[in-house]
């Protein structure tokens, strides 16, 4: 498979529209404008494209809900709030291939009938903001954005909205609240954003990577695209690999590539010849996998069978020297910090989990703390308003399941053996 999403990014000037045009950029847009919106959605359906944000929802299905809604205006939002720890896959698109995203968004807007798009960009990416704004200005200049795109009666405007440091805003309804200038607390569903989204209008929210797949699907057709990747999870996937590997980075590989392959083949194996201990396959919101359970195809359908999830495809690799209690503690510090505070189980539960993990890690763990952790997890799991609380509980659950001995050691020895 040649590169589709990261095509041409080694070119130091790849973000420039002229470079993009040289490699055939915006041709899909011209092709799309010759199609009917419903046919575009048909191609997407045939392609089998699933949302790359983490949940893996079929993109065409989401679009057709918004398409069918008769309220106008409709909005298209690109979720560029890439905040899941370990995830940095959208960043190369945003910083090096912004026109691919813009092209994808114009086509998507045309397909669902949205005339305004917003890129909700995480606040921690100031450089991406600069690049994106420049690219948008160029696209306006060349008439790929505006009131009459390429002289057609097609309108699409694009605005970058900068987040301000809140992981929860990656959740789509929290993102909408934030875009509306509010505290980023998730909304009750139903109604779903496809019907009542931003400013109460039908709204499609897609991840950067999802939208960046659109031009290629239009160019080769849905059927052609569906040949890439796994059977029910098609297309290329960006895997961001970090932690204890020789060659960390973003890898564009067919969906369903085996996790072991990603770590040992593409990312060069474990750093300094150490032994693998554990992997978060899709960011810290996905249950941890022990070293002996990494022969799993990295796609939305297969991963649950292995006790985890694809998530954002952020592979965090931990070698034998990494203390799992410490990882759990750090992760819970993150979840507690990022819990929006709206629902009781998440607000209070993340705090309790963090407190217990902190004392275990610091050698002050008590007899029964592991059971207590399990009880808190039990209270939280499946009862929180949004997935954040469930993720926190799921992480602790998987840690105890696979590395219970480390927790017991900490409590028994009253210290972390990695500590001096």
């Amino acid at each position, binding site marked *: 498979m040649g590169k589709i999403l990261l095509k041409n990014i080694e070119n130091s000037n790849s973000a420039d529209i002229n470079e993009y045009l040289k490699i055939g950029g915006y041709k899909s847009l011209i092709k799309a404008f010759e199609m009917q919106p419903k046919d575009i959605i048909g191609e997407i359906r045939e392609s089998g494209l699933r949302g790359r944000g983490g949940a893996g929802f079929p993109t065409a299905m989401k679009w057709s809900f918004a398409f069918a809604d008769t309220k106008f205006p409709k909005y298209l939002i690109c979720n560029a709030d890439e*905040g*899941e720890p*370990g995830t940095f896959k959208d960043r190369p698109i945003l910083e090096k291939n912004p026109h691919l995203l813009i092209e994808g968004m114009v086509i998507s807007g045309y397909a669902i009938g949205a005339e305004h798009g917003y890129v909700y960009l995480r606040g921690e990416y100031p450089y991406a903001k600069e690049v994106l704004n420049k690219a948008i200005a160029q696209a306006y200049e060349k008439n790929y954005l505006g009131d009459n795109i390429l002289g057609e009666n097609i309108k699409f405007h694009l605005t970058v909205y900068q987040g*301000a440091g809140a992981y929860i805003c990656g959740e789509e309804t929290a993102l909408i609240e934030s*875009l509306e200038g509010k505290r980023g607390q998730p909304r009750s569903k139903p109604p779903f954003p496809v019907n009542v989204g931003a400013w109460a209008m039908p709204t499609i929210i897609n991840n950067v990577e999802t939208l960046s797949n659109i031009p290629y699907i239009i160019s080769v057709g849905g059927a052609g695209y569906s040949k890439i990747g796994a059977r029910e999870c098609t297309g290329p996937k960006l895997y961001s690999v970090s932690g204890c590997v020789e060659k960390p980075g973003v890898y564009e590989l067919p969906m369903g590539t085996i996790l072991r392959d990603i770590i040992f083949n593409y990312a060069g194996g474990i750093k300094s010849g150490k032994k693998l201990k554990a992997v978060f396959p899709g960011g810290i919101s996905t249950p941890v996998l022990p070293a002996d359970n990494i022969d799993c195809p990295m796609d939305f359908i297969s991963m649950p069978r292995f006790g985890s999830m694809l998530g954002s495809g952020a592979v965090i690799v931990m070698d034998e020297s990494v203390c799992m209690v410490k*990882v759990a503690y750090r992760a819970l510090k993150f979840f507690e910090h990022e819990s929006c505070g709206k629902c009781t189980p998440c607000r209070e539960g993340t705090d309790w989990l963090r407190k217990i993990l902190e004392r275990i890690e610091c050698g002050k763990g008590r007899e029964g703390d592991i059971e207590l952790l399990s009880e808190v997890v039990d209270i939280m799991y499946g009862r929180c308003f949004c997935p954040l609380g469930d993720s926190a509980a799921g992480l602790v659950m998987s840690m105890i399941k696979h590395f219970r001995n480390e927790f017991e050691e900490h409590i028994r020895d009253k210290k972390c053996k990695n500590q001096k």
Partner: protein
Amino acid sequence: MFNETVLKEIDEIKGRYPDFRSALLPALYVAQREFGWLSHEAMSYVARTLNLPEAMVRGTASFYSMFKHKEAGRHLIQLCTNVSCMILGAERLVDFLRTKYGMEPDNTTQDGRFSLVIMECIGACGTAPAMLVNTDFYDNLTEGKIEEILDKYK
């Protein structure tokens, strides 16, 4: 109060959204740029400019960790210590900043040169550990590299 140019800038931002309230986050960024941080006064100006209740403005501003509610030093260091960075030694770097420069998380050094904030993931996990100094991005950090970098910020 904001000067005319800033008021115009906020007015222009308001026009980009179907509802003016969307301009709140951008306007808070503008206020932070103008004043360095979000003092009560700065937030009041935002409230007045956007015709929003002050409690709403404060409630919103306090939700987001990139809005600063304390006066920062001349240079703001935001160092990530989340899992990927932690695995590769980010916490040692915090200790280094503490001992070598006298920095404490969420505090400013006595000479007012640096403020340190411990960040959640900044999306540089592949080149961890990483930090932002103001809006400049640095990665693959080591103690030596940090020394070199911080020399540039007086």
